[in-house]
């Protein structure tokens, strides 16, 4: 009998990693992905624009939230609160302005008209930083301790783009709020 092919104990053809390792990795990945999706779906709104934050101030109360707006150039004042560096400025978005006191050093690219995203909370009193007179001046300020810069998708060099200077001079690229002398 030459056609004997009775099944016998299988012999591994090639060595393979233990399947459970890969399955554990796959399971961990599933859990991580699910957690991230839940975080995205159920997480609170990432940031309030300045106009939304002012409008919903009573609902927000004193809880921490994230605020977005464009710093108004002439309002920026750097100073100290005790030994701690602070930067006070007003920002605007959607026609509303907010006075801000940021505790700590400002972001590297912090500058007028480049939107910032700040973590902090409303404080029901005017900002007290020497030399700073807020533009909002509504008896409130936003006390921030984390600053990120939200730059735009313009990748230009002002040395080579005269039109940007022209636009800037014309006020097309700046906020509508005008600082008093």
């Amino acid at each position, binding site marked *: 009998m030459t056609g004997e092919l009775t099944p016998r104990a299988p012999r591994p*053809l090639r060595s393979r990693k233990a399947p459970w390792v*890969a399955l554990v990795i796959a399971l961990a990945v599933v859990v991580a992905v699910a957690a991230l999706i839940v*975080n*995205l779906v159920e997480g609170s709104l990432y940031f309030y624009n300045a106009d939304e934050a002012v409008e919903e101030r009573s609902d927000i109360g004193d809880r921490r939230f994230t605020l977005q707006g464009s710093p108004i150039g002439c309002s920026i004042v750097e100073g100290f609160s005790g030994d701690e560096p602070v930067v006070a400025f007003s920002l605007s978005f959607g026609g509303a302005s907010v006075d801000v006191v940021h505790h700590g050093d400002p972001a*590297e690219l912090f500058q007028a008209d480049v939107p910032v995203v700040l973590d902090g909370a409303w404080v029901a009193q005017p900002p007290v930083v020497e030399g700073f007179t807020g533009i909002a001046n509504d008896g409130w300020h936003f006390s921030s301790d984390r600053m990120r810069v939200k730059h735009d*998708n*313009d*990748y230009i060099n002002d040395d080579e783009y005269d039109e940007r200077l022209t636009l800037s001079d014309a006020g097309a690229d700046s906020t509508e709020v005008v600082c008093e002398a």
Partner: protein
Amino acid sequence: MSADAVNTGSRTTRLLGAAVLIGVLALILLGFFGAPEDDEQRDAVRMIFVHLPSAFGIYAAMATTAVGSVMWLWKRSRWWDIVAHSSAEIGVIFCGLTLFTGSVWGRPTWNTYWDWGDVRLVTTLILFLMLVGYLALRSAGGDENAMATRAAVVGLLAAVNVPIINRSVEWWSNRTLHQKSSLTDGNLEDLTLFTLFVGIVVWALFFVWAMIHRFRIGWLEHQLRDIDLETALIQRRAEAATESSGEESR
């Protein structure tokens, strides 16, 4: 087996490889010495020449994986299954590179390496983890066809994430630090745009080069499995013949 039989290179891949190397050199020269700095970001803007082409690489890799996965599910073609697998592996590299370069770029510009609230960052991380899961599933072993089917489903689920990543800056404008599309809505200087174009072409060539090599490796592995099976059958038949002749002689 001769050395030539296991070589995944060819004249085409060698030309492609040379073009990639020349392209990378051109990209470095243009990126560092040609394109001007940005008036806000200064030199940090040069990261765009790696970051954005890497993101495009993800799109290309995931589109290829999606097509390969659909074709496997539809035609049960091993060729397409290997295409999907190869592309997913390269997609992991592009995805990792995009996350890394984005993080490095984010520190001087956004003032943070990472932000969990940012929808584009988190969806890209989800894609990266899904691709890692895809590859883990691939290496789990078991029945080859069942594994290919499971991987195809995961590959398609991962591919669904790509348009979400791409459109996230439009759909959730209040949930991202990311700027809107640089190519379609942005304002780029001529040399910046040209350098970016060079970067995209170089990454595309790299993708094709890596795909050809990885596919050939996958195909060789597939052939090797067939050879292993045939060899095992021949050996078993020979053993069985020896056993039966021994019994007859007794």
